[in-house]
């Protein structure tokens, strides 16, 4: 249990990388990149977790009454999720441009076009 969440995060990251490398469709590749991103979220939040802790949000509990988990990693993850979605959108826009210019979104065929 001590390292299981970290190992799972590493596994998700490697799975995403495998999908990226073997993808035959650029939209699918963007989806795999999203999987890779989620691995970093799992890792960061696992690092910040504390046994028996609760969220450091004091709207419904008295400060100091319960142990709390690390808020810094949560803040990092939280902004990255939304910003990551817009970056995904940017990549998808690039894919649409490629489809328009080259008529295909298969990376292998694109390489052949380049010559």
């Amino acid at each position, binding site marked *: *249990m001590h390292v*299981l*969440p970290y190992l*799972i995060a590493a*596994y*998700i990251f490697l*799975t*995403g990388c*495998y*999908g990226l490398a073997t*993808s*035959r*469709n650029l*939209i*699918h590749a*963007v*989806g*795999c990149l*999203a*999987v890779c991103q*989620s*691995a970093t*979220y*799992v890792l960061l*939040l*696992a690092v*910040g*977790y504390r046994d028996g*802790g*609760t*969220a450091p*949000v004091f709207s419904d509990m008295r400060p100091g009454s319960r142990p709390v*988990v690390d808020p810094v990693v*949560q*803040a990092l*993850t*939280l902004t990255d*999720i*939304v910003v*990551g*979605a817009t970056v*995904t*959108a940017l990549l*998808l826009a690039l*894919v*649409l441009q490629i*489809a*328009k210019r080259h*008529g295909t*979104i298969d990376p292998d065929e694109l390489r052949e076009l380049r010559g």
Partner: protein
Amino acid sequence: MSDALTVVVLVLVAAAATAAVAQRDPARQALVLSFLGVLLAALFTVLQAPDVGLSQLAVGSALTPLLIMLSVRKVRRRGRSKEGPE
């Protein structure tokens, strides 16, 4: 004993991530990705990060699938309008 919940959700997330990579058709992948997004939100709740869970829910349940499906539709439409006789 409270580790059981963490382990269950972590294993589910890992399985969903594998499935998302294994689906080669982007539309089917978008379905799995939206499932993965909701599941990640549950994992973040279990890891006591409700703010992050909210963020993941907002993005993963509707926004990312919509973006991917719109891209798929655009690419398919291009294919159709070129192959078709019109």
